[in-house]
C-alpha cells in the first residue's frame, strides 16, 4: 500500500518535471524564432468567397459608406465633423488586434470566434469614445462577416490579407495566458513599471492622459490623445466589457497601429504585462466599496443616477476634500454631451463626464466638482467679450471641408480660452407644475429664468441670471459676495473645484433671481463645462441632462412612531380574525 503511494508520487514528480522540461524547451524554441513571450505564429486566413464580398458591398453601402466613404478612405459625408475621424481602410492600419505591432488584424470570414477575429469583434462591439457603434443586434453575424469581407478585400488597398510574401501573423495567445490575480503586490509592481517603461510620459502621472497631450499625431497627421485610464468604458478595445483586464493586456502587448502607442511585447515579460494591466485596470473609476461601476447596456457607459444628494453637516463645511464628511458623501457620475442644439454647436466635447458631490448646512450648499481635462487652459490676456455675453463670435465646424479643414485637423490648434464650469438651477421652480422645468439652455424666458453660477480657470466665480438661449446673461452683483470659491485646482489632468453658495431665504435674497434650495425637494440642476483648449466659449460647451439636487432631510420622528402604531394595529387585527374564526367553528357568530 505504502509502496504504491510512493510510486505514484514518484511518477507524478517525474511527469511534472517532464512538463517543465517540455515547456521550457518549447519556450526556448519560441525565443529562437524571435517571437516575443506569449505570441505564436499563425496562418493567414483564406480569401473570403466572391459571394460574401458581393453581399458585403450591399451592407457597406447601406450602413458604413456615410462615414467611411465610397473608397473606404474615411472621408464619407460625416467625416469632417468627427474626431477621431472615421478609419481610412486603404492602408490596412487597424488599432485593436491580437497580432504583433504593424501586422494586419485577425480576420477570417468563416470564424466569428471571439479572440480569433479582431475585425469581427470591432464591428460587433464598436469602438467606444468614437462614433463607431456596436453593430450587434443590428447586423446579423453573417452580415458582419460579409461587410468585413468586402472591406478587407476591396477597400484595404495597400496591403493584402492573403499575401504570404509580405504578410505574417504573430498572434497573442490571450486565451492560453492565465491572468495574474490582481493582488496589491501585483498592482504595486505595475505602478512602478508604468513609470519605468515611460507609460506616464504620455498617459500622465495619474494616468489621466495628460502627459504629452499636444504633440501626439496619428499616421495621418491628426492629433490624437493618450487614453485616460480612469475611464475604461472609453477604451477603444474595451469590447463592451470595460473592467476586463485582458483587454488592457492585449492592447499593451500588441500596441495600437497607426498611433504612437507601441507594443511592449519585446521589452516586457508576460508576468510584467499582467502587473501593468492589473494596475491600469485598478485605476478605472469604481464605487465607494471598490466594485466596478454598473454599466448601462443601452449606452455602454456607467449607469446614471439623476439625483445629486446633499448631506447635512453641522457647522462649517470642510474645504478639505480628504475630510471624512466629503469621503462619505455619495459621488454622482454626471454624463456630458456636446451642446448641439444651437449655434455654435460643439460636435467634439472633450469633457464627457463630471463627478459631483454635495454637502449643505443651515446657510450654504457646497458642490465639489471633479473632472478630467488633459490640459489646464487659461486665456492669455483679456477675453474679447464680457463675461455676461452669450452671443459671441465662435465659429462652428462646417459640414464639408475636406481633411485639412476638418474638425480633427483643428484639434489643439484653437485659440485657448478659459476652462470653466457652471451650475444652472431653476429659479421659482416651485411655481412650475412638477415635471416642467425652465429650458436646459440658459432658461426659458423672463418669467422662468435660471440661476447660473460659473467658475472660470482665471479664478473668477460669478453669478448670472439666464433668460433664454440667445439672451445675454444678466449680472447679479451683490450675490457674488455671498458665494465663495473653496477650491479651484488643476492637478495631473483633473480639475477639483469646490463652490459654496447660499441656500437662499426670502429675507436677504431675490426671489426673482436666486434659486431657493429647500430641504427634501428636487431642485432641477444642469451642469455646463468648457474646455479652453477645445476653443470652448459661450454656447460651445458640454452640457448635462437635467439632474436634481436633493438636500437629504434629517429623519423625522414620525418615521419611527407610525410603523410601531401600524404593527400594533396588525396584532389587534390578527386577534380579531382568530377569535372570529374560533367562534364560528364553535357555531357562534358575533
Amino acid at each position, binding site marked *: 500500500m505504502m509502496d504504491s503511494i510512493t510510486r505514484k508520487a514518484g511518477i507524478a514528480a517525474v511527469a511534472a518535471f517532464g512538463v517543465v522540461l517540455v515547456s521550457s524547451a518549447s519556450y526556448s524554441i519560441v525565443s529562437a524564432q524571435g517571437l516575443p513571450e506569449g505570441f505564436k505564429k499563425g496562418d493567414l486566413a483564406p480569401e473570403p468567397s466572391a459571394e460574401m464580398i458581393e453581399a458585403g458591398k450591399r451592407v457597406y453601402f447601406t450602413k458604413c459608406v456615410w462615414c467611411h466613404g465610397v473608397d473606404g478612405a474615411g472621408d464619407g459625408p460625416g467625416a469632417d465633423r468627427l474626431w477621431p475621424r472615421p478609419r481610412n481602410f486603404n492602408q490596412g492600419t487597424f488599432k485593436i488586434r491580437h497580432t504583433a505591432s504593424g501586422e494586419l488584424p485577425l480576420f477570417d470570414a468563416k470564424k466569428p470566434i471571439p479572440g480569433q477575429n479582431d475585425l469581427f469583434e470591432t464591428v460587433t462591439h464598436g469602438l467606444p469614445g*468614437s462614433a463607431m457603434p456596436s453593430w450587434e443586434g443590428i*447586423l446579423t453575424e453573417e452580415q458582419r462577416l460579409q461587410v468585413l469581407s468586402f472591406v478587407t478585400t476591396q477597400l484595404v488597398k495597400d496591403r493584402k490579407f492573403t499575401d504570404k510574401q509580405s504578410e505574417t501573423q504573430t498572434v497573442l495567445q490571450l486565451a492560453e495566458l492565465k491572468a495574474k490575480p490582481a493582488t496589491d503586490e501585483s498592482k504595486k509592481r505595475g505602478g512602478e513599471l508604468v513609470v519605468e517603461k515611460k507609460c506616464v510620459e504620455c498617459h500622465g502621472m495619474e494616468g489621466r492622459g495628460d502627459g504629452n497631450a499636444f504633440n501626439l499625431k496619428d499616421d495621418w497627421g491628426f492629433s490624437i490623445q493618450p487614453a485616460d485610464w480612469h475611464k475604461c468604458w472609453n477604451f477603444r478595445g474595451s469590447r463592451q466589457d470595460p473592467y476586463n483586464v485582458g483587454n488592457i493586456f492585449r492592447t499593451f502587448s500588441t500596441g495600437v497601429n497607426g498611433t504612437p502607442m507601441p507594443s511592449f511585447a519585446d521589452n516586457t515579460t508576460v508576468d510584467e504585462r499582467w502587473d501593468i494591466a492589473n494596475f491600469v485596470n485598478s485605476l478605472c473609476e469604481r464605487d465607494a466599496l471598490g466594485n466596478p461601476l454598473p454599466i448601462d447596456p443601452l449606452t455602454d457607459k456607467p449607469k446614471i443616477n439623476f439625483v445629486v444628494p446633499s448631506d447635512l453637516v453641522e457647522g462649517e463645511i470642510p474645504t478639505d476634500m480628504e475630510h471624512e464628511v466629503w469621503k462619505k458623501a455619495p459621488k454622482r457620475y454626471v454624463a456630458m454631451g456636446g451642446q448641439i442644439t444651437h449655434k455654435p454647436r460643439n460636435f467634439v466635447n472633450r469633457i464627457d463626464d463630471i463627478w459631483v458631490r454635495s454637502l449643505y448646512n443651515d446657510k450654504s450648499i457646497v458642490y465639489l466638482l471633479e473632472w478630467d481635462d488633459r490640459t489646464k487652459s487659461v486665456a492669455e490676456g483679456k477675453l474679447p467679450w464680457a463675461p455676461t455675453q452669450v452671443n459671441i463670435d465662435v465659429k462652428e465646424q462646417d459640414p464639408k471641408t475636406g481633411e485639412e479643414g476638418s474638425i480633427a485637423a483643428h484639434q489643439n490648434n484653437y485659440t485657448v480660452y478659459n476652462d470653466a464650469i457652471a451650475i444652472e438651477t431653476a429659479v421659482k421652480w416651485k411655481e412650475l407644475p412638477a415635471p416642467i422645468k425652465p429650458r436646459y439652455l440658459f432658461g426659458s424666458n423672463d418669467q422662468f429664468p435660471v440661476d447660473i453660477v460659473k467658475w472660470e480657470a482665471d479664478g473668477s466665480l460669478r453669478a448670472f441670471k439666464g433668460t433664454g438661449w440667445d439672451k445675454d446673461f444678466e449680472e447679479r452683483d451683490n450675490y457674488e459676495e455671498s458665494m465663495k470659491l473653496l477650491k479651484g485646482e488643476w492637478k495631473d489632468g483633473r480639475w477639483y473645484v469646490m463652490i459654496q453658495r447660499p441656500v437662499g431665504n426670502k429675507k436677504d435674497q431675490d426671489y426673482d433671481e436666486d434659486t431657493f434650495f429647500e430641504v427634501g425637494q428636487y431642485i432641477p440642476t444642469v451642469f455646463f463645462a468648457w474646455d479652453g483648449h477645445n476653443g470652448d466659449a459661450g454656447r460651445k460647451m458640454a452640457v448635462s441632462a437635467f439632474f436634481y439636487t436633493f438636500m437629504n432631510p434629517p429623519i423625522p420622528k414620525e418615521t419611527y412612531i407610525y410603523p410601531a402604531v401600524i404593527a400594533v394595529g396588525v396584532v389587534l387585527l390578527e386577534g380579531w380574525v382568530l377569535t372570529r374564526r374560533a367562534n364560528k367553528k364553535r357555531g357562534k357568530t358575533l
Partner: protein
Amino acid sequence: MKALMSLGALVGVIGILLLGGMIFNVVPSTTVRLVEGYMPMQMLFELTCFVAGFAGLSYMMNAMGMPFPRFWQGIGFWAFILLYLKYRVYPPIPFSVRAMYGTVSLVAVFMWVSASEEDWKKFKQPIMNVLDAQGGMNKLLRYAYLVLLPILIGGFSYNAMVPKSEEPIELRTVHPAPPASTKVHGKTYTLQTSQNPYRVNQEGKYDQDYTNANIVEQGMGRLMKPNANPWDDKNKGYLKYVREGGEIFFQNCHFCHGDNLNGRGLHAFAFNPIPANFTDPGTIAQLQETFIFWRVSKGGIGLPNEGFPWASVMPPWEQHLTVDEIWKVILFEYWHTGYYPRTWD
C-alpha cells in the same frame, strides 16, 4: 399527451432556472435579447410559453404522485410574474407600472383559483388549517405568523416613510398633438395638405408607391434593395435625394440619433430621455411625414406643454438647415428604417 406535457414541464423548469439566474445575476438579463420594437409581443409570447410550461409541470408532478397544492401554485405564479417583470425586462419598468401589472395579474390569479366552488375551497384550505391550528406544524406556523406579520408590515411602513432621494418619475408625451400649420423660413405649411417635395419617381412626379418600393428591406439588417443603391451616380429622383438626405443626416443628426438611427449616437448617453429611436415601430412609423417636418423644424423648444419641452435638446433645425434639407433628411430616415410614413387617408 404525456410527451407534450413533459415538454411543457421542461420549458417550465428552464424558465424558472433562467429567471433565477437573472435574479442572482448569474445569467445576464440580456442573454436572450428583447428585440427593439417587438418587446411587448416578445414578452407576451414568453409568458404564454411559461404558462404552458407550468401547466405541463403541474401535470407531470401530479402524474408522478407529487401534486403541488393549488394554494402554492397560485402564489408561486403571481410571484413569478412579479419577478419576471422586474428582472427580465430591460430597460427596467418603473415601479408604478409594475404595481399596475401586479394588481391585474393578482386579480387574474384569484379568478383562476376561484373558478369553481371546489377550487376555491382547495385554495383556501391551507389558510383555514393554519387559522384552526389543529396539528403541531400548523400551531407553530400560526405563532410564527402572529409575530412575523406585524414586524414585516411595520418594517415595510418604516421603509416607505424614511426620506429617500429616488429619481422622480416623469412620464412624457412622446408624440404631442401637432398644430394645424407651421411656419418655417417665412413660409406656412399646412400639416394636413403638405407633401414631401422629394418623394418623387425618376420622372420627378410625386409617387408614394415608387418610393415605398425602394426603401430598405425589412428584416434583420434592413439592407437596401439590391437594385436601389442611393450611391449609384446614375440615380434620378427619390434615390438621389435619399443620398443627399443621408449626407445631411450624417453631418448633423447622427450625433444623437445614431449611425443606425436607433437613438444611440455619440452624445446620446448624456441625455434623459435618450434620443428617439427611429427603428422602433412606435416612432416615425406611426407618424405622418408632415408631423416629422414640424418636429424637426421646431425642435424641443417648439414643443407644446404636454411634451414637456425643456426635457428635449432637439434643435429647432430651421436654425441650421433649409426647408429642402429638412425634407431630404426625413426622406432618408424613412428609407433607412424601411418604414412608410402614415398618410392622412
